[in-house]
């Protein structure tokens, strides 16, 4: 079993509401997976199940462990940053470092301190004196210094300015990620992480509606600027989305060979933001 995460028929209900609906997927090591979905689509619920923070139905293995019964073993290998600030307001930077050093056997204190030295955080600073960006930096310092195999990031850059956001991913790529590690990230700022990802998962109403490597996404989906005289021929190929620009139709196709599309007009790769919008059409209707 080489999968970092393996889910079969994963389901989570809150009362009658189904938050995650019979979902199955496999995530191999060395990947950076973007879990993208509208608010309330089940992203955080799925991540909670993976982290053993919520009971679930179905089969789920994370690094070979069952998150519901082997949470302690699992937590040695997994780190996460949640979208809500969970650090107590009175906590000082140095106390946070001491705490993690005390509870986590894989924590590398020197690495955390080295990282903190590059920020404006001072050892005696309390969480309540920090900006949002600084709190995320503290989180990141703690998390990156743990040699975990799986890192789960739930909206890690929410509310951060663009400098902090860029710095965040830069640090992850430079000091944390390698081919033995796996990162799952959820974010609404999809354009910013588009090129960092190796895999993409779209989730809608608790179901995974697209799961593909970025290579596959590039091969499967293409946008074509269709000339008016070819519009009917193009529509016959079942575009998943169509919009009008300068009197031409821009159509998005799934799984139609490029060579065939090229006869209809100019083709281009589609960004995941556009793909997301096309796939999620009707979500709020």
């Amino acid at each position, binding site marked *: 079993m080489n999968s970092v995460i393996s889910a079969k028929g994963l389901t989570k209900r809150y009362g009658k509401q189904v938050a995650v609906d019979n979902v199955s997927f496999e995530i191999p090591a060395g990947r950076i997976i973007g879990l993208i979905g509208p608010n309330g689509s089940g992203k955080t619920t799925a991540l909670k199940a993976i982290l053993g923070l919520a009971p679930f139905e179905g089969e789920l293995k994370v690094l070979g462990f069952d998150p519901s019964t082997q949470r302690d073993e699992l937590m040695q290998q997994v780190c996460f940053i949640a979208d809500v600030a969970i650090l107590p307001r009175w906590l000082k930077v140095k106390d946070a470092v001491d705490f993690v050093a005390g509870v986590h056997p894989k924590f590398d204190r020197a690495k955390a301190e080295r990282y903190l030295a590059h920020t404006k955080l001072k050892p005696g600073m309390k969480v309540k004196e920090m900006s949002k960006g600084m709190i995320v930096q503290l989180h990141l310092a703690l998390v990156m210094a743990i040699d975990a195999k799986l890192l789960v990031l739930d909206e890690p850059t929410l509310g951060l300015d663009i400098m902090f956001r860029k710095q965040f991913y*830069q*640090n992850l790529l*430079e000091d944390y990620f390698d081919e033995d590690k796996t990162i799952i990230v959820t974010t609404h700022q999809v354009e910013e992480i588009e090129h*960092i*990802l*190796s895999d993409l998962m779209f989730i809608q109403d608790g179901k995974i509606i697209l799961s593909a490597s970025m290579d596959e996404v590039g091969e499967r989906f293409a*946008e074509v600027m269709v000339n008016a005289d070819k519009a009917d021929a193009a529509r016959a190929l079942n575009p998943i989305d169509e919009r009008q620009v300068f009197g031409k139709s821009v159509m998005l196709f799934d799984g139609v060979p490029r060579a065939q599309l090229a006869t209809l007009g100019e083709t281009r*790769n589609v*960004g995941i933001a556009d793909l997301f919008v096309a796939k999620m059409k009707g979500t709020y209707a």
Partner: protein
Amino acid sequence: MSIAWNDNSPIYRQLKERVVGMMLDGALKPGDALPSVRQIAAEYQLNPITVSRAYQELVDDALVEKRRGLGMYVTDGAPEKLLASERERFLSDEWPAMVERIRQLGLNIDQLLSAASNGGGK
């Protein structure tokens, strides 16, 4: 710093072309070291696999060589190789498009030559 990638070709290829461009204008010379995959990935916010793939193509084209434990270096023969392949590419890809544009604009050869000799070309 960030690069505006275009939508027409895969990122790894665009990255490769960027390195090739730096070789062509002499910013990267034979024997120069390329930045590590990790550095490039972090700097341009790319998946490391994308960067590795671009580097691998440069190795396959013998423009760059791997030195064990040290990293990637521009090969001695890189400039000549590049010049030959870029000339070919210009003639097969860029030139036909340019000819088409010239035709579209109705420019004649005298106009083109005089524009080129007025500093339009080097």
